[in-house]
């Protein structure tokens, strides 16, 4: 087991290298296919009055004249050793792990990533608690009362929840609950938990509900399908034959078995969500990793894009690993030895 984990972690590290190299390649090499030069790349990071001299200066400063592998190497070195950055009036040392400085704002990327992570984390955790609770219970009830009015209503709701895009439900929710009714916070009012727990909760309430609505729909369907599956298994009959209360049969035997695939899917969903719930953060103007990614991409800011891509890849890889390990914990048949 131990060696298995080590092997997986090493594979994860390799994957992160590949992802970062690919991002570098896309950023630098693809524009070259259409004839980009270091100068044309640099024009994105200068003002509209920039003279060719300025463009040249910035192209040098950002390292565009160096071969791509050298720039990549420099960036990798920064992660392990740190780097020095000149801010004009002086030089700042960016300690390891240094993910470079934004091409646009000249701020160090790593502290920004760390600053935004709690937001995405808060959003993901809160929403997942809601959607697991609501989705699982709805799914169980639907499965047990299959074909009933309750089941059909629940599944229709979930169809709506899955089909309606989040930028729609989010905007409508904001309009209705925040601006018309004033029950929930307006967009862009996030405060960290450490500063003001009350406001933190208030600002995240609507995003949690909207995000959870979408996911709980999926999970209700998943749970329902899983339950229908497990409830027709032989061990359910045995459990009843033992005289167990129906509730225990449903939950301890039925749901417990149905949970395994759901938990693994949840692990993957959560991992992806940590990479940034892009649409939700965009709609509610939450300063998380997702919004960071969007801003970085629209401004062609490579260091930010790299930082956020790697962070997202990291979470996905870790989530995959955890899910695989969890599977062995949850389903004893999978364990080796």
């Amino acid at each position, binding site marked *: 087991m131990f060696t298995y984990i080590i092997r997986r972690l090493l594979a994860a590290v390799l994957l992160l290298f590949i992802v970062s190299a690919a991002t570098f390649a896309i950023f630098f090499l693809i524009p070259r296919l259409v004839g980009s030069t270091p100068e044309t790349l640099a024009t994105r990071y200068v003002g509209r009055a920039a003279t060719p001299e300025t463009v040249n200066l910035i192209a040098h400063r950002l390292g565009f004249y160096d071969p791509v592998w050298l720039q990549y190497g420099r960036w990798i070195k920064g992660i392990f050793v740190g780097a020095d950055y000149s801010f004009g009036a002086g030089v700042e040392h960016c300690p390891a792990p240094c993910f470079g400085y934004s091409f646009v704002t000249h701020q160090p990327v790593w502290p920004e990533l760390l600053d935004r992570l709690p937001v995405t984390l808060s959003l993901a955790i809160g929403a997942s608690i809601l959607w697991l609770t609501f989705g699982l219970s709805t799914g169980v009830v639907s499965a047990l009362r299959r074909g009933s009015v309750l089941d059909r209503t629940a599944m229709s709701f979930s169809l709506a929840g899955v089909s309606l895009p989040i930028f729609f439900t989010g905007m409508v929710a904001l309009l209705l609950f925040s601006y018309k009714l004033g029950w929930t916070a307006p967009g862009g009012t996030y405060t960290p938990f450490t500063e003001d727990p009350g406001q933190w909760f208030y600002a995240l309430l609507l995003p949690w509900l909207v995000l959870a609505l979408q996911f709980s729909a999926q999970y209700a369907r998943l749970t329902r399908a899983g339950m229908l599956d497990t409830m027709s298994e*032989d*061990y359910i009959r*045995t459990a009843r*034959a033992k005289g167990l209360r129906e509730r225990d049969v449903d939950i301890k035997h039925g749901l417990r078995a149905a949970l395994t695939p759901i938990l693994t899917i949840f692990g993957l969903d959560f991992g992806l969500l940590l990479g940034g719930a892009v649409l939700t953060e965009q709609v509610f103007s939450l300063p998380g990793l997702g919004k960071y990614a969007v801003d970085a991409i629209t401004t062609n800011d490579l260091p930010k894009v790299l930082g956020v891509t790697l962070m997202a890849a990291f979470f996905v890889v870790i989530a995959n690993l955890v899910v695989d390990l969890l599977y062995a914990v949850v*389903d004893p048949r999978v364990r080796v030895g």
Partner: protein
Amino acid sequence: MSAGLPFLEVKDLKIHFKTDDGLVRSVDGLSFSLERGRTLGIVGESGSGKSVTSLGIMGLYNKRNAEVSGEIWLDGEDIVSAGEEAVRKLRGDKLSMIFQDPLSAMHPYYTVGKQIMEAYRVHHKASMKVARKHAIDMLGRVGIPQPDRRVDDYPHQFSGGMRQRAMIAMSLINNPQLLIADEPTTALDVTVQAQILDLMHDLQEEFNSALIVITHDLGVVAELADDVLVMYGGKCVEFADATTVFDRPEHPYTWGLLGSMPRMDRPNLDRLVPIPGMPPSMINLPTGCAFHPRCAYEQQTGGLGSTLRPELNRAGGDHLVRCHLPKEERQRIWLQEIKPKLEA
């Protein structure tokens, strides 16, 4: 019937299922009784209604999923008319069931010990420690070596035979007075089958429980059963003690079963003789006698076979047969036609 009040008495049990294709009459008027200490073997093909009968006795069919009528008296209580909660309390306690495939019948995620403890604690207020002791004890009694270690193993970690023993341990943990075994050896190797059958026999003697063995395997019946009930099309077609069934069976279906059974004492058997035809549709049973389309002797019933449903008649003593053929005719066919072939 034998002396003493029967522990289990089934009276005109009917279990029907409403489906989109029609009404499935799985059990259509079954009656029998059983005392503690005795074993009843219920034999039949798939779809004859034997498993449904056993689940019905367990009270696992209720208003929601089936139409159940008739009476099932268990030690003075009628399971059919009793409330769900009352029946639930009986299940796993006074009456218990062993299932065919222990791998699928046990929950894969809980240890065998946990599952046995669960069976115990449903019906007894006991701590985990006490329940665990009972579980280990029971595992030992069913012949599992090192039960204190194996109690923490998962079902998939047992071999087939051991697993069935564990399942048996689970169903016996509360000293049930009625034990129903549904195809207990079908999923096992032949060598293991014998061990399990021996085990069941010993345990039945030890607990003095009534045992119903449901099987399509006459070999099992021969080993364990005191009485045999042959089911076809949801009804009993022949009932007798085991000796009589093997010595002097009087129903053409029973003959067919015997004929299709491989036996060691048949030296020159070229082929097994299957019963021609397919099991009947439980929605559209044949008119008259349910067996008549497959019966070689239907012609000799003078047209009754296809038009009139035969009743269960006494053929002598406790021997009951449901057939239009006259008794003498049946006995003659057995002695002159069937038996010689079986012993050839």
